Structures are given as C-alpha cells and as structure tokens.
C-alpha cells in the first residue's frame, strides 16, 4: 500500500526527555559542535525514528516519507519545533556544510539518496545555499554507484568524492593515527553532517557513525587491525573532524546484520528507520544493540561471541578520548514510530 506521509500523522515519542535537547535549544548564539555536546554532563540523546510505511509499492524509499521521518527524528532530538527552524540549531546561513555519506555498499546498502536529498532540502530551508552544500565520500565513482549524481559546479548542491580534490599534503595525527585529511573537510566545510549506514563489519564488529570517519582519511587500510581499536577513536579525535562534526543521521532504512560492510542481500533487512544524535558514541552504542537484536532474531551469535565486539566504541568513550558516552545510563533513547 502506498504510504501517505503528512506532518499530521500520529507519532509516538515513547521516551522523550528534555535532556540534551534543552541544552541545544537553550539560546546559544551559535550551534554547539558535537564534541562540546558529547563532553557535557547532560545525558546524550539518541532518537530512533521508524516508519513501517516508508517505502512505495516498488520497495523504494519514498522521498516525501523520508523527509517526514527526518523531521520527526530531528524534532525528537532538538525539541518540538517547525522542521526548518530546527536546522538553524545545527547550521547558520553562510556556512559551508558537508554531508559525509557512506557508499561502499553500492546501491544495495549505501546512504540513501532520498534521505540525503531530504537533508539538503532542510539545510537550504535553514538558509544554506545549495552550492554551499557538498555531498561526499572517498570516491566519485562509488558515489555514482550508490545512486548519487556527481555535480561539481553551478548553483546546485555539490556532490563529489575526495578523489576530485585530493587530500591535504600535511599529516595530522592523534594517538595511533597519522593521516592526510580530505580537502573537502578542510577546505569546503564548516559543519560536518555524518550520514552513515547501520551495518555489520567483519573486522570492526559494526560500522556506523564513528567508523564512517575512515572515509575522511587517506589511509584507512592501516587502521583495520585489532578490530580498528583504538584507531577509530583516534581518527575521530582529529581536530578537523571533532570540531566540525555537528550531527549524525544514521541511515537504517536498510541495514546489515552480518557479512558487512559490503552488500550482502541475504543479510540485509529493511529496517525503515533513522538514528539521529549529536553524540556519535551514543549513537553507535544504540546501533550496535540494534544489530545484536537482529542477529539474535536470526539465530546468530553475538559479535562478542564471534570475537569481534566493537571495542572501539568504549575506547571512544574512555578518559583519553571523551568523544561521547557508551554508558546506557547516560543515554536518553527516544523512539519515534510513525504508523
């Protein structure tokens, strides 16, 4: 049945606490970056928004419905408000905004194009000019394979890979990591919006928000040993990432519970959900739990039992990193169900 999306549809805020939302909405002249929020004493907030009727009759994600779901997710995160106004708490006019997607999985399991278009629509509604928005990943070809149209000029939303502009020559380092950073992040971005996909990962356990930042550096292959620990945490500590990352919108419209990160249709399920947070660690913690629940439902061992629990999430939360919290007691989970 065709999904009918409208703002008036009934929504459930099953566990809506003020928490971090009041911090964000509390009258700051400029939006807080994710690092500031993550290090605040307030609980981290993660919103999981579902819409069972997200797709059209052909199974594709419906553009209007995903925009509606995004709006509800953002309202859950930042407090009830008019959808466009919510985004002014994330960006201010004149800023360069980059939307880091994940396109490794091709059309099967990459950041959803309709979702990214919805994000760009809201950014423009908040006063960001189209040409000041860049949708990006490592490689333009991978973007195209995932369904994005590469655009590199004109008064339109830009979309290209780092291969188009390259990496900075100078290394930046933190802890175990020394890398060159994409020039998109260093030169074309004031605000970073992370749009990962909810996926299992054969080495790291899961790949969600934190690991998607591997697409920012030139040498991710060096940082896969030991379940990517502590490398993922160290990459997220790099100043260009830490200071610019303001929001994570995890695409769980389709998600992968086994055999990731590449597309394995037999291990992919249509979850029809978004996870939204400003604390990447908290989001990954919740995302990991979701994957574990799906694995249990399918009769698979836990990631821990398989020897690939994503330990890097705890490392990202430890005293040496403080990128956010993985403590469930400090995470406010808000579920929004549209149906």
């Amino acid at each position, binding site marked *: 049945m065709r999904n009918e999306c409208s703002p008036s549809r009934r929504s459930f805020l099953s566990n809506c606490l003020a928490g971090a939302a009041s911090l964000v909405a509390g009258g700051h002249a400029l939006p807080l970056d994710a690092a500031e929020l993550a290090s605040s004493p307030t609980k981290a907030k993660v919103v999981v928004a579902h819409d069972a009727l997200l797709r059209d009759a052909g199974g594709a994600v419906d553009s209007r419905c995903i925009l509606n779901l995004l709006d509800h997710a953002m309202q859950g995160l930042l407090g009830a408000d008019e959808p466009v106004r919510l985004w002014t708490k994330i960006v201010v006019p004149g800023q360069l905004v980059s939307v880091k997607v994940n396109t490794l999985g091709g059309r099967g399991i990459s950041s959803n194009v309709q979702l990214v278009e919805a994000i760009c629509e809201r950014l423009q509604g908040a006063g960001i000019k189209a040409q000041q928005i860049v949708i990006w990943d490592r490689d333009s070809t991978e973007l195209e394979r995932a369904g994005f149209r590469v655009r590199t000029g004109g008064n339109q939303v830009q979309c290209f890979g780092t*291969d188009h502009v390259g990496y900075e020559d100078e290394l930046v380092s933190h802890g175990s990591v*020394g890398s060159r950073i994409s020039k998109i992040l260093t030169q074309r971005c004031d605000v970073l919006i992370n749009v990962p996909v909810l996926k299992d990962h054969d080495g790291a356990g899961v790949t969600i928000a934190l690991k998607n930042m591997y697409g920012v550096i030139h040498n991710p292959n060096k940082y896969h040993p030991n379940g990517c620990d502590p490398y993922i945490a160290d990459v997220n500590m790099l100043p260009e990432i830490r200071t610019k990352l303001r929001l994570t919108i995890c695409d769980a419209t389709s998600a992968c519970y086994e055999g990731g990160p590449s597309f394995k249709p037999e291990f992919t399920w249509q979850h029809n959900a978004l996870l939204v947070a400003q604390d990447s660690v908290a989001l990954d913690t919740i995302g990991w739990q979701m994957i574990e629940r799906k694995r249990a439902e399918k009769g698979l061992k836990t990631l821990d039992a398989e020897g690939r629990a994503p330990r890097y999430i705890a490392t990202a939360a430890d005293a040496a990193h403080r990128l956010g919290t993985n403590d469930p007691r400090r995470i406010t989970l808000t579920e929004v169900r549209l149906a």
Partner: protein
Amino acid sequence: MTTNCCSQANGEAPRAEVPAAANSETGRFGFLSAPMNRRSFLMCAMSVGASGSIPHFAESLPAMPLAETEQKQSDAQFAVEARFYDKLPNKKVKCKLCPRGCAVGDKERGYCGVRENRGGVYYTLVHSRVCAAHVDPVEKKPFFHYLPGSLAFSLATAGCNVNCKFCQNWDISQARPEQVSSQYVPPRRVAELALQYHCPTIAYTYSEPTVFSEFVMDAADAGHEAGIRSILVSNGYIQNESLRAVYSRMDAVKIDLKSFSESYYQKIVTGELKPVLDTLVALRKMGKWNEIVYLVVPTLNDSDAEFTGMASWIKANLGTDVPIHFTQFHPDYLLKNLPITPVSTLERARDIAVAEGLHYVYIGNVPGHPAENTYCPQCRRMLVQRTGFEIRQMLIRKGACPFCKQKIPGVWHA
C-alpha cells in the same frame, strides 16, 4: 639528506636522496617526456634540492621518462589478479603474501592498501603502476658488495605492508595507488628503460616491493630475458611461499632489519621481527647475495644489548661475511620528536658488530665517514673507498684483496 623509510638505507628514497645537482638542472623535467605534474613525482623532484647540502654524493641522475605522453590512470590497466591468496566463504579472501595474512572482505583492501577484494577475487592494483622511477647508484640501495659503481634502474609503486613511524617515503608507501601519480610501465618497458640508461640492474625499492610482488616477478623475468639483473630492497616481511616465488628471481636482496626487538617491530614498525629473521635465513639457504641495513633510531633501538644480540644472531645464522649497514636516522613522518642519530652511536654499533666478528660493517648516511669504505678482514687494508654513493677507489681484483689475496665476498663485476 637521507631517508628513513623501510628502504631508508643510504638515503634510499625517491625524494631527498637523489643528488643535489639534479634539482638545479632546469632540464630535469625537460628530460621527462611526460610531465610529472602529480604529487609524488613532484615530491621526488622538489626534494632533490634537499640533498643540496651534501656535495659528496655522486653525480646527479635524472628521474626517468616513462611514457611518451602523459597517461590517464585507468584502474583496469593496473588491476591483475593476485597470485598469493585463498578464497574464503562469503566472498572473503585470505591474503598469503605477507605474514599479516589479511582476511579481506568484499570491496575492501588489505593493510597494504594496494590489494582489493572484488567479489571474492583478490586483485593487485599496482601491476605496472610505477609512481617513482630513477636511475640510482647501486650504492644508494645500499649494495656495497654488488656491482659497485653501477647504476640501478629503480622503481616503486604505492603501498607498504608495514607502517614505520620514521618512514621518509610515507607519501607513497602509506598511500593508496589512486592517491599518487603513476604511469603505466609494463615489465618489458622496464627492461627497455634499464637498457636505455645503461643500468645492469632493475631495483625494486623506495616503498615496499613485497606489495607489488606480481609486478616484481614479471619485470624480473622481462629483465633477465634482456640481460638485466634484478635487485630487491625490502623489509623482508613476507610469507615463505611468496618469498620463494619472488626472491628466486632476484640476483641480490637488501633487507631492512629495523630492530632486534619484537616490541620495536610492534610499536614502531607495525610488523614482526621473527618473519624477517626467517627471511634472512631463507635467503642464506637460497644462496642469494644479501646485505642488511639497520636504521639506528636514538633511544628506541640503539642499546648495546640490542646491537650485540643482533650481531651475534647474524654471525650464528648468516655468517660473518654478510655486510651490515648501520644508518643514520633523520626525523620524519610520525617520529619527529627524536634527534638525528649521533655519529658516535653509529660508531658504537659498528664497534660492537665488529667485536662480535662481523667482517663488513658499514656506517650509512654519514658521507665521508671512514666506515663507508670496505676493508680487508685479513690485512685491514682499504679495498673500496667511498664517499656517499661515489666510488673513489676500487682495488678488489677477481673478488679478492690485491694485497693478501683474501677472498672478499660479493659480486664485484658484471
């Protein structure tokens, strides 16, 4: 100026070690029939100037013309199915090239960054994908006992299977192939270029040849067909099967023994010591000419105990005739907080190795130091006088000391 990469040796790097005068020659790029306007070639060229403060090095030599016109990189052109891997369930593969043994999922790459799983088939992405090429003195590798005074057509692709914190070639060794400028130079073209530039050898160097093994093997075969030998500059971190396949085609191999400590290999190199020692023993059994470089990094691998342990192991397992080069560290990459190795430390290392009984112990990256020379272990007379990469005097005749007739191990003449 010297370098600290896995192929650090005597400044063995595509940048910084090419002698000074080359950079001052405006014709250097004119020499290139294809303008090397991409990053690594620029780095190579620009850094030539960095060695300008060392006038002792040999006459400048140019970067190589590889193609008639600039080439557009085509991934398909360089992607060749890898030779050393197993297929696993779920489209995964297990790389069998180096001891790391990466299990690589579909669409992912191994640690080296130059091998990719595409639907369960593992590919090398760097076959014939040359990102650096120079004509170097063989002393720069360094080989001191192998065709001294000759030239080596030296090349590299992107990639490395370790991540040394001191690497001075990190801009190519730690890069993915698509991130550095490269040209398509197939094996036969490599052999042609070596002939064209009067190089009796092709040297696989600068980054880590293990990661471009298939290309090494094919280029070596093409070279041998054309009468050109092959020499390898490697970290020795390679599995036995691939070692046999690759090293059997080599005429000489230089191994970087980066430390004699497993913890150093883990923390500084991101590798393991034991497989490197196994490689050295395997080379010995294969009868390949082998020299060893030990980059001395202040405070990290410069203790008397480590020097003694290593020299003792070499004597017991490889014999006293394998040349070892103690080379000077220069701060770079992720290890900029340490000073240049004091010459006194290098001399201490040499004294210890000599006291342990090793016959040919050199000091590298210190042009003009007396320990660059070869001395007869029998009569102590100087047999080869070197300054930097330049041979000042060569007195060895028919592989022996002209004064006391002591046989001097090595390959002295083509």
